[in-house]
């Protein structure tokens, strides 16, 4: 139970173990990126099958002849019936390198994890310094990796789930002409994500932070020939940059006030801050601005739903399991800083809770299966922020982990569904939307494994015991409740409202979001897998389970989604080892948590806890029941026959018109002012216009000069000039 303090790298218990090789964990995916990138460019240089426009993508009657390429990009398969699918010439090698480097990385991570467990209690992080990055003046930033309990959890999630999703991608993307490029980007993403969690200082985290944003940009716009996809990628990058601005300013404030940017240095300096002081609050709020960008919280959530334009495995890895949780990691990493700023913590919790509810309302009315999951992700990220916001870092990280399991499963499962739908429509040369749930229905009959696995994930996210999500969500809500009294948060005020009132509000919003989660997830399952099939009678014979290379990772994730709760069983649980994760993370976040709860462990009486658990479970069950009784899948019609929504349904379907609002309020005015006022007005109007008479003169003079210069004797000018220069330089020098 102590803050990581200054320490020498040598002499650390991990120094003589395999942990010395921890740099391999990020370097392996980087190597994969270089190799795959080389393969993709080499092939690109030779026009032929590798070229998208030459080969098309897909072939009607070959079972393996088409990836889900067009499925994700709406209407992308307009040329599908021309040309024949050829696997990328380097596909075999890429399939080996892409997932291979990740698997190796995961193995190294497991070995390091094992070493970390065997050294027993580890109170200080193990910092592996590679080289000095930006040494100048009083600034010293190293490229250094930090291994501690928190980064270890993140590393295992990233490499473990990353490996599964890479394997799934081998099947999902098999016939895409950009196959090596896809794996190059995906490998690069994992490298940056590992840098993000392993960096030992804020600037290095920022490298990973922006790097994952870059890969996200590249992968969202992977099928860049669709304008919508390229737009979505660009939007993601720019919106993220607004958050990055906050991250940068937070770093400036840290350096100006603490003189250091390393975690250990900032953590130590945070201890000397004034509790609730302006500095701590400002730094934390700017950090949180960064987090709202990367983790898609209000007001910067708008990029994430659009990000679904990328291939579905990308949505699973980047936009559900790993990258979008970076904001949660950032706050957990800055636990001691946030502990000094209760007002900032309450802001985090309130924004998280509002986002959870807001996104859930939109999720209720989406027809695109991936959009439902996208808003669900935004909503669940809100939960995580509620957790870390109230200083329950273990709960937040715990939910991050279980969410990584069940949301990756849901996305990959939806990928299998989309793949199957796409194959079927492809076989019949039908150009319907393979992601619209109105075109699905009754798929359980054709895809029993996927259906069963996705039900596990659905029960987990809805919070039904004993599935993983139940434990993590319950812990967050219980932590909020526990802090309504006897915590720094309860004692603080937020915008004039007493902290405990705010926390009750957050708790209520959390319950409301839980109810809606259960409803929209059940709705998604019913519309997709149950009721009559609406894909069309011609398509039905073609519907079937995806190949094993895609289903196997789903099964692993299914097991994790079901049993993930074991990692951190609550104290009231009747049997089994309790609070493993809590004890594991204690050396990193323990102090931050204790500061919030006035130095003693948050405590709820067992009876209170039973009531809270009962309430949460009841709400989940009610949500599922509402969806079951109110929804009529039999009454649904395929997307092309559907009547447009009206009223509140239309508003929800259009996501409360937030995008349109931003466009009108921010984007268009910026462009307008830049074009009319700054460019045409000030630049060409005012500044150049100030010399109005001069300009006319200039034009006339230019004409005269032109006639002179066009004498065709330009050589003369060069001669004259050269002789002049030589003359001036030498004449005086040599006498």
């Amino acid at each position, binding site marked *: 139970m102590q803050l990581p303090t200054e320490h020498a790298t040598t002499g650390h218990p991990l120094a003589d173990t395999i942990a010395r090789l921890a740099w391999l964990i990020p370097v392996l995916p980087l190597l994969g990126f270089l190799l795959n990138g080389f393969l993709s460019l080499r092939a690109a240089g030779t026009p032929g099958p590798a070229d998208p*426009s030459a080969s098309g993508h897909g072939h009607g009657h070959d079972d393996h002849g088409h990836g889900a390429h067009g499925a994700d990009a709406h209407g992308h398969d307009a040329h599908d019936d021309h040309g024949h699918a050829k696997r990328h010439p380097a596909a075999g090698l890429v399939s080996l390198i892409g997932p291979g480097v990740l698997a190796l990385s995961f193995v190294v991570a497991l070995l390091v994890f094992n070493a970390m467990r065997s050294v027993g209690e580890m109170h200080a992080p193990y910092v592996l310094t590679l080289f000095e*990055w*930006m040494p100048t003046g009083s600034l010293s930033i190293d490229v250094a990796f930090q291994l501690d309990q928190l980064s270890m959890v993140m590393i295992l999630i990233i490499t473990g789930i990353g490996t599964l999703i890479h394997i799934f991608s081998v099947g999902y993307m098999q016939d895409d002409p950009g196959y090596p490029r896809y794996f190059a980007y995906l490998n690069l993403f994992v490298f940056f994500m590992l840098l993000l969690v392993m960096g030992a200082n804020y600037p290095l985290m920022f490298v990973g932070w922006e790097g994952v944003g870059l890969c996200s940009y590249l992968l969202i716009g992977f099928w860049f020939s669709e304008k919508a996809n390229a737009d979505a*990628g660009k939007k993601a990058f720019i919106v993220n940059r607004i958050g990055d601005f906050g991250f*940068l300013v937070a770093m400036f404030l840290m350096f100006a006030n603490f003189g250091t940017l390393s975690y250990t240095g900032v953590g130590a300096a945070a201890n000397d801050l004034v509790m609730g002081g302006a500095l701590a609050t400002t730094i934390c709020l700017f950090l949180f601005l960064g987090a709202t960008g990367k983790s898609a919280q209000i007001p910067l959530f708008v990029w994430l739903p659009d990000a679904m334009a990328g291939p579905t495995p990308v949505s699973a890895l980047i936009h559900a399991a790993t990258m979008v949780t970076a904001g949660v990691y950032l706050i957990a990493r800055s636990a001691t800083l946030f502990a000094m700023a209760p007002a900032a913590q309450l802001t985090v919790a309130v924004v998280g809770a509002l986002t959870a509810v807001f996104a859930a309302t939109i999720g209720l009315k989406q027809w695109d299966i991936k959009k439902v999951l996208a808003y669900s992700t935004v909503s669940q990220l809100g939960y995580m922020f509620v957790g870390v916001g109230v200083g329950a870092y273990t709960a937040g990280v715990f939910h991050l982990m279980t969410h990584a399991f069940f949301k990756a499963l849901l996305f990959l499962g939806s990928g299998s569904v989309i793949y199957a739908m796409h194959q079927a429509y492809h076989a019949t040369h039908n150009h319907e939307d393979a992601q619209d749930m109105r075109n699905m229905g009754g798929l359980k009959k054709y895809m029993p494994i996927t259906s069963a696995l996705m039900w596990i994930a659905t029960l987990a996210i809805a919070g039904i015991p004993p599935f993983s999500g139940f434990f993590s969500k319950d812990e967050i809500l219980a932590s909020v409740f526990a802090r309504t009294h006897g915590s720094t948060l309860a004692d603080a005020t937020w915008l004039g409202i007493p902290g405990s009132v705010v926390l009750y509000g957050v708790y209520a919003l959390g319950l409301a979001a839980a109810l809606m989660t259960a409803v929209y997830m059940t709705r998604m399952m019913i519309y997709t897998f149950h009721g009559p099939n609406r894909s069309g009678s011609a398509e039905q014979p073609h519907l079937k389970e995806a190949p094993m290379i895609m289903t196997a990772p789903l099964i692993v994730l299914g097991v994790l989604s079901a049993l993930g709760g074991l990692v951190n069983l609550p104290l009231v649980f009747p049997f089994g080892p309790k609070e493993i994760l809590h004890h594991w993370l204690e050396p990193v976040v323990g102090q931050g948590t204790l500061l919030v709860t006035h130095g003693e462990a948050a405590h709820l009486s067992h009876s209170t806890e039973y009531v809270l658990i009962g309430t949460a479970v009841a709400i989940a069950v009610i949500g599922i029941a509402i969806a079951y009784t109110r929804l009529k899948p039999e009454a649904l019609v395929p997307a092309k026959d559907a009547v447009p929504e009206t009223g509140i349904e239309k508003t929800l379907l259009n996501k409360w018109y937030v995008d349109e609002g931003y466009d009108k309020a921010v984007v268009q005015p910026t462009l307008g002012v830049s074009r009319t006022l700054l460019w045409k007005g000030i630049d060409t109007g005012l500044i150049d216009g100030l010399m109005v008479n001069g300009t006319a003169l200039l034009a006339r003079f*230019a004409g005269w000069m032109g006639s002179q210069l066009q004498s065709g004797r330009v050589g003369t000018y060069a001669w004259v000039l050269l002789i002049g220069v*030589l003359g001036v330089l030498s004449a005086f020098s040599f006498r």
Partner: protein
Amino acid sequence: MTQFLDGMAYNSWILPALLGLPLIGALLLLVQGSSNKGDADAAMRSARSLALWIFLAEAVLSIGLWWSVDVSSPDWQAYVDAAWIPQWGVRFTLGLDGISLMLVLLTTLLMPLAVLGSWTSIREKTSSYYALLLVLTTGMLGVFMALDLALFYVMWEVMLVPMYLIIGIWGGQRRLYASLKFFLYTMVGSLLMLVAIIFLGLMAGQGQGPNFSYDAVLQMTRTAAVPGGFWLFVAFALAFAVKVPMFPFHTWLPDAHVEAPTAGSVILAAIMLKMGTFGFVRFAVPLFPDIAMHPTVRMVMLSLAVIGIVYGALVALVQPDFKKLVAYSSVSHLGFVMLGIFAMTVESMQGALVVTISHGISTGALFLLIGMIYERRHTRQIEDFGGIAKVMPIFAVCLTIVALSSIGVPGTNGFVGEFLVLIGSFPTQPYFTLIAATSVIFAAAYLLWAVQRIIYNPLVKPENEALKGMDLNWREIGLLTPLLIAIVWLGVYPKPLLNKTEAAATRMVRSVEAARTSPTLINTRAASAAAQQVR
């Protein structure tokens, strides 16, 4: 390496040699050009290869400076001092410190790439063109090396004329307007500077004929207040501000860039703009520290710098012409350099120097890429493109990497410079820094939007589909590769560069701070100590 260089007394001849070699080359080119009147194609071939060899020789010669210059020494390095125009007190004095070392190397290493960039696009009057490029190089190098104010001014003007001719003769449609605008803007600024230089030279001579030596002038301004110091500073600052260019003196730049041939744009952006910021670092600020750091003057300079950062980015956002977009982005980037200089901390000064170098690399590469696509499509209008990543994947990869570096994505050179400027400026100028930092958003917006409209989106225009099979050739890949390597290298491991400039930047910041804290400046101990510390 150092021993080897010492063995041939490298430091004693290298700077004059670097100035002389391009002039000899220009002479050879003109002789060759006049003897080769008939076949224009053959003339082009022989002229460009001769020019390339000379620039390569220049680059190879200059590399030794990396080792031979002792950047930690407070003395001028590779110092050369000879009488030149004795009756006017003008001397031929050259020398380097860590800061000018990096700029000299940037120039010598970039010039061969600029020649390769105009390898096929310049087809008329080629020997004159390359001769002018060579004379220009002498001028630019002279500006960075000169330690005599009069020599500095001569070099400053030497570089102006060839660029004027390059734009005016080999430029685009509105080349005459652009070249004249460039010429007049720069001339007005430099004439005022000439007056200031003559005034300073006469003052420094103390009645025994003028003395233009930089060290002497510095000693003088540090130990006694110069009458009319404010106006002298204004004269220098104006000349340099036009060159940088700072808002509102920037309107010549977009026109000059758009009309200039590729090599002209590359040199203009990568090197010539840096003469402005170099001028502030070498002359305007150290010679008049109390005036430059006077709260009002500083406020004005910082405001203009920050306005330039945001204004340049916003105007870049709405440019339909890609070259103009990059030109306005230069206004934004150079604003960072000015912010770093006037924030006056070691970190911000170092950041300013890194931006100086890395803007040269990234923007140089951007102009080269624009030139390559222009040669194929004969348009620079962004809306004329779309989807060409499909037909020119290697071009697309290069453009993406260079754009990311210009945006300042971490891991590229662009980030290091901007980050150091911002984090170094924040402690002394928090509000200006906050405004400047918003450009991370705008930079992403204008460049990614442009990149999207050029290489992404549907490939529908037949002219663009016709680019199939016309991806970058080996010459183009070869000339971009060093730039791409530099982009990543400086982003990941900028330490060697920072080490080279650290001592000079620290000395400058300390001496300016010392001079500032003794505002009377008249024979105070601190001031003379500070002057000692500078040189």
